[in-house]
């Protein structure tokens, strides 16, 4: 399905000096292009800002610790 695949990516502009710095940075790593590295970094940043469901509260944390103690994982 070439049409669907073609829409999966779009273009974002970044300053040329930054592009070259990233090119240098990814040399010798598994990243094969600046795009793949930038996608990875942005995905991490975006994921950090997203929370799934309710935030993890102190009460939740206490409940988890109690469960771990009950199972013998914590003293």
């Amino acid at each position, binding site marked *: 399905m070439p049409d669907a695949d073609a829409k*999966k990516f779009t273009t974002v502009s970044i300053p040329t000096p930054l592009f070259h710095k990233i090119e240098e940075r990814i040399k010798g790593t*598994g*990243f094969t292009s600046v795009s793949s590295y930038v996608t990875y970094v942005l995905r*991490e940043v975006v994921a*950090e800002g997203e929370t*799934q469901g309710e935030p993890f509260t102190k009460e939740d944390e206490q409940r988890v610790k109690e469960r*771990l103690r009950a*199972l013998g994982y*914590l003293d």
Partner: protein
Amino acid sequence: MPDLNGADLINRVLPEEQRQEVLSRALLYPRLKLDDEKVNEVYNVCQGVYSPLEGFQGSTDFRSVVHSGRLSNGQPWTIPIVLDASAAEASPLKEGQTLCLWQGDLPLALMHLDEKYAYDKAGLASGVFGTTDPKHPGVARALAMGDVLLAGKLDLLQDPDDPYSRHKLTPVQTRQLFRQKGWRTVVGFQTRNVPHLGHEYVQKTALSFVDGLFINPVIGKKKAGDFRDEVILDSYVALMEHYYLPERVTMSVLRQEMRYAGPREAIFHAIVRKNFGCTHFIVGRDHAGVGNYYTPYAAQEIFQDYPDLGITPLFFTAFFYCRKCGSVANEKTCPHDGSLRIDFSGTWLRKVLMEKGEPPAELLRPEVADAVRKWEHPLVEEA
């Protein structure tokens, strides 16, 4: 290090106030009964083991995973997580409906049916397993699947019945546990075997570079000749008790079917361990392989295609016992002739454990051998 509080983890467990209400109406939803392996998949999705998945995959993600080893948004994901049904089962179900998934008589989860779709089984086998040979156990299972896939988000109503719940932790719990232990770096070890000195060597070598070791045996459907789940657990309990520092190691089981998809499954295993909070993951020779379908280090080479995985693989070459070195060694550390080496093969291990008499202590810990031998039938038998 992944967020210890689990903010990046999917949580599809229905809140208590909604749970009771839904349970009281469970019989009113269209009903779908799950086998044990699908029950495990539901639990793994809902408890965040399979983050970022929120349910069984739809056709877009399915095709993307099969063909490119990534979700349609580009995130690494190499094994389709799908719910198959026969045409007769799927026929009365309508997209947009909410279904109740059952484990026997237990209402397990709600599924919001977004899509039902046909798929190419040979394409699935070829993409994921690299072969369409029906002798491959993963291919055989794929070819035996129902003709329709059902997709949609899940909401867990209650944890499944599980004799191993005492040894089962969710990713939120493991991350909390690692934090309580003060571990900033944790290496995950996937296993489906009784541990011999070779495994111990690999684990302790990896542990030398990180704060903690997370042993994570796979419990679930296996092939004939594999060690039974309870035997593997007992043997690890014995090993940990006698040969590991308790403040440096922990273990919990992973309820998951082995696919024997070699390299693809190695990536999948690494993603799961990242979700548990591991920063590193051990990948040995022929990880998750079967027969001669994959080259010995294919499961390591594939990591080159996933620099964005978010967990660091630790690669190990084949290891063996060298009589001249007088220790476990590998191809990078031992200069001696092959005739001086004893290979730790699965066949060797089963033979040693089935024989009378004490196994060589330099190859297998006596406490581990005792833990296995207390079982009359330690191996999975032909169905």
